């Protein structure tokens, strides 16, 4: 052993003992039972309906960017729910534990959670929401949409794409595992040193946190390389830079941020790991370490990461608002410049996360000013969206409602952000609830955009629209919940209340905490409406079938191919002539999608290797967390072996024969009815718009073990 560990260690099981399973925490026991029942039901259902083969062939081994994207989004939604459950517990605990007289339940001093347990919850809440909910949701959307928008048949590296998904999933699985085996970190999602060093966090919690974070960082970096290479190298002929849709631009700038910043996070975490595992002195207070170095490295990543999350949200808004304003985006060039300006400035603002470190006033001034600079391109974007609606015909369908909600939240978030950037303000409420409320406004901008994007692109991926009624209930309850929860939080910020308290010493704060609880109730109801929304949409899917241009006023390339999108995306690669190519084609009546004979299409073959690698990485993470050295070595050896063996595999591609393409395409075309939308498209009609006559798909590809079916998604 290189470092002094508290507690037992054995060569076979490392630090793992039976006591690490929290039988004594009733909340966790109940959670475990619920999760176990749900898992058993899913497994039983899969077996009962004989779907294992389908699951394996079509999803687990897939390298199709759309299916990988869908799985990313599913992962994101599941983790979003988990993060929301954590939020509920934080809010209820704080509302219960006010004042010295507040009673303690279930072994807690105040409220019903011990400080140690609450610490794990808020840490998990932050980490999950940032890297296992928002990131997978956005990465999933980019995965699905970007290749479609640039007229590509796939991503640059389909295999790497799958690997990124399974690494992220491995990280998420470890977070979930920490619920039932051992414990999670208990000091905040971004970690504190020296608090996260061994003397102050002696358990395995920090190790869980560190390795899950590291896995998701690797996964996201791989994804960003993939998306950048896809955009740079795989655009369809004629798709010049200045003809790229805004979402693609946003994806490019956001992935540049990820590509450049994630390595620094890996270093920040790896050095902490060395401190904890080897006993080095990077971040220790004594022995020549520097504890502020961790904050520095972490936020060198952390601040760009914030824009990594917000830029795709801006991209989504820039797609939805023109579509439902039935009008071109205002100031396209400006929007592109603004996206890159935000990305660029994001690299020079990180010290504002530790303004209170006692840096020289000149340093704080520099970072205060650079932080404010972000307000300029962001302000420009807001104005450009407003001027997109100006002289338009705005339709208030669900995606548009979400985009506008995001716009209003951005106004609040932007204003409070400028207040935070003002360093003398930050001295007063740094680490306080004002900051928390501010960044929740911003992540709600992201969340609203994501919900908008899901509504907007869902028909493209699955071939039917989500219904509107329950979706609107969901929307309005989210708004009420947001106001009711976060307005009091801003007030608590003015009260000077700080983050991460599990006991509230000052009874004056309790009214605000109780009002916030009401907001949480609205959120809970909103979640129920969301479930109803999904259920009703799935039930009525036949009724809500759509054709290629689901909203009738789509502008960019993705609306040109069938909904749902075939495995090869485009039977013929389009040649792009203008920005908003599809809108231009519709204006000029050029909507025929069948210009001649079909050709065979070369596609990558499915492979199980990324899934196995993900599992091995999860095993490696688990072994390192519990310091089971033999298992860690075994996993590393297997990972290296698997990568090398895969590199010898020559049979990685296949060709979809022309007749199969024809079969798929004519199937989709047969479903096209003559119903023409008049939805605001000037001149011309939309031939590709279709209404499906029956629930059965005309598309059915071969489903042999080696080649995936060509039906894009299961109907």
């Amino acid at each position, binding site marked *: 052993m290189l470092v002094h560990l508290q*507690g037992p260690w054995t060569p076979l099981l490392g630090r793992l003992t039976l006591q690490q399973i929290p039988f004594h925490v009733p909340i966790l026991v109940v959670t475990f039972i619920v999760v176990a029942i749900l898992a058993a039901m899913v497994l039983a259902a899969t077996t009962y309906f004989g779907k294992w083969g389908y699951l394996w062939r079509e999803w687990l081994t897939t390298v199709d960017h759309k299916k990988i994207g869908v799985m990313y989004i599913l992962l994101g939604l599941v983790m979003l729910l988990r993060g929301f459950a954590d939020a509920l517990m934080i809010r209820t605990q704080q509302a219960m534990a006010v004042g010295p007289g507040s009673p303690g339940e279930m072994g807690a*001093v105040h409220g019903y959670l*011990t*400080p*140690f347990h609450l*610490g794990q919850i808020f840490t998990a809440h932050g980490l999950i929401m940032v890297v296992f909910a928002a990131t997978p949701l956005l990465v999933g959307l980019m995965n699905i949409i970007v290749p479609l928008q640039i007229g590509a048949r796939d991503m640059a590296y389909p295999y790497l794409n799958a690997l990124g998904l399974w690494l992220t999933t491995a990280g998420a699985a470890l977070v979930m595992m920490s619920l039932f085996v051992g414990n999670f970190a208990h*000091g905040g999602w971004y970690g*504190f040193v*020296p*608090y996260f060093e061994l*003397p*102050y*966090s002696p358990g395995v919690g920090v190790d869980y946190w560190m390795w899950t974070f590291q896995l998701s960082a690797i996964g996201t970096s791989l994804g960003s390389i993939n998306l950048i290479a896809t955009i740079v190298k795989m655009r369809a002929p004629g798709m010049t830079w200045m003809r790229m849709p805004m979402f693609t631009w946003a994806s490019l700038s956001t992935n540049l941020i990820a590509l450049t910043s994630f390595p620094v996070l890996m270093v920040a975490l790896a050095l902490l790991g060395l401190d904890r595992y080897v006993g080095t002195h990077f971040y220790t*207070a*004594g*022995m020549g370490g520097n504890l502020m170095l961790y904050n520095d490295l972490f936020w060198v990543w952390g601040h760009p990461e914030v824009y990594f999350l917000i830029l795709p949200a801006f991209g989504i808004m820039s797609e939805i608002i023109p579509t439902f304003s*039935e*009008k071109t985006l*205002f*100031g396209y060039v*400006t929007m592109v410049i603004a996206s890159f300006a935000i990305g660029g400035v994001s690299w020079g603002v990180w010290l504002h996360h530790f303004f*209170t470190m*006692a840096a020289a006033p000149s340093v704080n001034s520099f970072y*205060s000013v650079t932080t*404010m600079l972000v*307000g*300029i*391109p962001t*302000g*420009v974007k*807001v104005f450009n969206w407003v001027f997109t*609606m*100006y*002289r338009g*015909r*705005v*339709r208030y369908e669900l995606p548009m409602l979400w985009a506008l909600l995001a*716009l209003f939240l951005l*106004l609040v978030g932007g*204003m409070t952000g400028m*207040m935070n*950037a003002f*360093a*003398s*303000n930050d*001295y*007063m409420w740094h*680490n*306080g609830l004002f900051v928390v409320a501010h960044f929740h406004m911003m992540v709600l901008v992201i969340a609203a955009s994501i919900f908008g994007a899901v509504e907007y692109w869902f028909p493209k991926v699955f071939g039917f629209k989500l219904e509107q009624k329950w979706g609107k209930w969901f929307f309005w309850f989210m*708004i009420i919940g947001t106001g*009711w929860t976060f*307005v009091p939080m801003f007030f608590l910020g003015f009260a*000077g209340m*700080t*983050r991460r308290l599990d*006991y509230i*010493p*000052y009874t004056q*704060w309790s*009214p605000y905490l109780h009002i916030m609880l009401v907001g949480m109730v609205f959120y809970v109801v909103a979640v129920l409406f969301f479930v109803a929304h999904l259920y009703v949409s799935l039930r009525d899917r036949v009724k809500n079938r759509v054709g290629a241009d689901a909203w009738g006023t789509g502008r960019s390339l993705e609306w040109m191919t069938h909904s749902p999108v075939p495995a090869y995306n485009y039977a013929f690669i389009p040649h792009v002539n203008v920005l908003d190519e599809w809108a231009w084609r519709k204006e000029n009546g050029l909507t025929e999608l069948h210009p001649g004979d079909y050709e065979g299409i070369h596609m990558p073959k499915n492979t199980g290797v990324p899934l196995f690698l993900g599992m091995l990485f999860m095993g490696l993470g688990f072994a390192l967390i519990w310091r089971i050295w033999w298992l860690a070595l075994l996993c590393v050896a297997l990972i290296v072996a698997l990568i090398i063996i895969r590199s010898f595999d020559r049979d990685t591609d296949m060709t979809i024969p022309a007749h199969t393409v024809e079969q798929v395409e004519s199937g989709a075309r047969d479903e096209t009815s003559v119903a023409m939308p008049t939805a605001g498209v000037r001149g011309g009609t939309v031939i590709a718009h279709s209404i499906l006559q029956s629930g059965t798909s005309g598309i059915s590809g071969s489903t042999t073990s080696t080649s995936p079916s060509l039906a894009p998604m299961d109907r």
Partner: protein
Amino acid sequence: MVLPPALLTLGGCSNNGLYLLKPEGLISHTFYHYFILDVVIMLLIIVPTTLLTIWAMWRYRKGGKGSYDPAWSHSNAIEAIVWGIPLVTVGVLSYLSVKAIYDVNPYNPGVIAKAQKVDGGDSVEVDVIATDWRWLFIYPQQHIASVNQLVVPVGTPVKFRLTSTSVVNDFLIPQLVGMIDVMPGMRTKQALVADKAGTYIGFSADYSGAGLSWMHFQTKAVSAAQFAQWVKSTQQSPQHLSYAGFNRFAKPYIAVGGDQQTFGKVQPGLFDYVIGEVMHGKVWRTPMAMTENMVNYMQKQRAEQKAGDY
């Protein structure tokens, strides 16, 4: 969206605990001044933008009265305005922000330096040591120390040197002064002037572990005469603090009951000594049993540690 703020204003007009909006010290007054300026300038932008958005949404709704021109997507004049307005705003705010940073700069706050130039006069020095999870205030000029209670004279600049034994804390008294990191093995500075006598809350704002929520202290701003009186009575206290005693004192301890106490005599140079020890690798580690079962630990600890002599 409207209801919650309305409830809030109805809820607690008298004593609503919004400490940041009731500054009682020179530094916090300065913050408040710039804060109001900042908010007003931002509202000048945000409110018209919000109204413009709502107007565009209403006017150009489908079936509304707005004229429809889908080809319109560029205007140099509008571009100039949309870049110009944020640019000017950010310029003005940046200027104010830099000015504010120098005014409340913890190491040598412009406003206190200016006030001292006018009034002259002494200042009170306080050495702050944050342990897990208590605040120790040492008055090096008076050779006394106080735990979880800070007593300062009104109208006199108080100058702090701060360090921590184990992990990073943030020193904050919302109504008097903003945050400064309190870091082990490092020394930071802070300064404040209290304008009005009273008792103000103060606490650690950075997460430092299980006892954080109880790591708060009272700040009593008293008249100069009362301060001298307090110093005198504290110097009578039979409890003394040596380094060896401090070593025991700094062990993880959750001050559930506020747990104030005073020391009539403190070993000189204790503050520097603690920094040196930490730099040489001294740690007061947190026992695993404590993080995982805090309630038992707290009970045991309170039985053991009956405000003993250090």
